[in-house]
């Protein structure tokens, strides 16, 4: 049954779930591409990426639910990807700003930025698929 009322509990739950899946995917992907050298081992990083992924997913899922009638595309998956990339771009822009403000402290790495952009796309894809499945049930 389609409900017109906002249900943040649903948005946040789906967001956290997809974010945790994504966090593990990010860990695996980044350790495989080796665009930078990890400071810590996979085992140590696992809970960090799980938490970081859940955090991003939570924020994304909450915005998905609140903005769902205002998103540009007809498809849920396209909207989730667009929103995920947009949120990543906001955080990325903050990083660029910090780099401009304090270049010695914050470095800009093109390959890592491209990887981050791609991974934000993946987070949107995961959330979109889970969201679509949950609305069909």
């Amino acid at each position: 049954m389609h409900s017109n009322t906002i249900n943040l509990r649903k948005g946040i739950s789906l967001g956290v779930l997809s974010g945790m899946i994504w966090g593990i995917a990010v860990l695996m992907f980044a350790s495989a591409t080796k665009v930078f050298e990890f400071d810590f081992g996979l085992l140590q990083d696992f809970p960090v990426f799980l938490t970081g992924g859940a955090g991003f997913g939570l924020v994304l899922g909450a915005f998905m639910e609140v903005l769902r009638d205002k998103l540009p595309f007809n498809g849920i998956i396209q909207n989730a990807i667009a929103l995920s990339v947009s949120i990543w771009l906001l955080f990325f822009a903050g990083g660029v700003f910090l780099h401009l403000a304090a270049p010695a402290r914050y470095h800009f790495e093109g390959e890592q930025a491209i990887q981050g952009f791609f991974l934000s796309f993946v987070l949107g894809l995961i959330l979109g698929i889970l969201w679509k499945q949950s609305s069909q049930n």
Partner: protein
Amino acid sequence: MEKTVLPEGVNKTNAVLAIAALGVAVLMGIAVYGFDSAIPGVHDLFHDFRHSIGISCH
């Protein structure tokens, strides 16, 4: 007169969850930029995660 204060579709659970989500958004900012002044040790803890998702670092 709660209905005049809260827009349609907003209930108390949603309001609490919205504030919590904003709090998490702030925490994510602190984590991805590594603001140790806000949370000591957060820079090192989220270091590999930050580089993985392409946010400026050292």
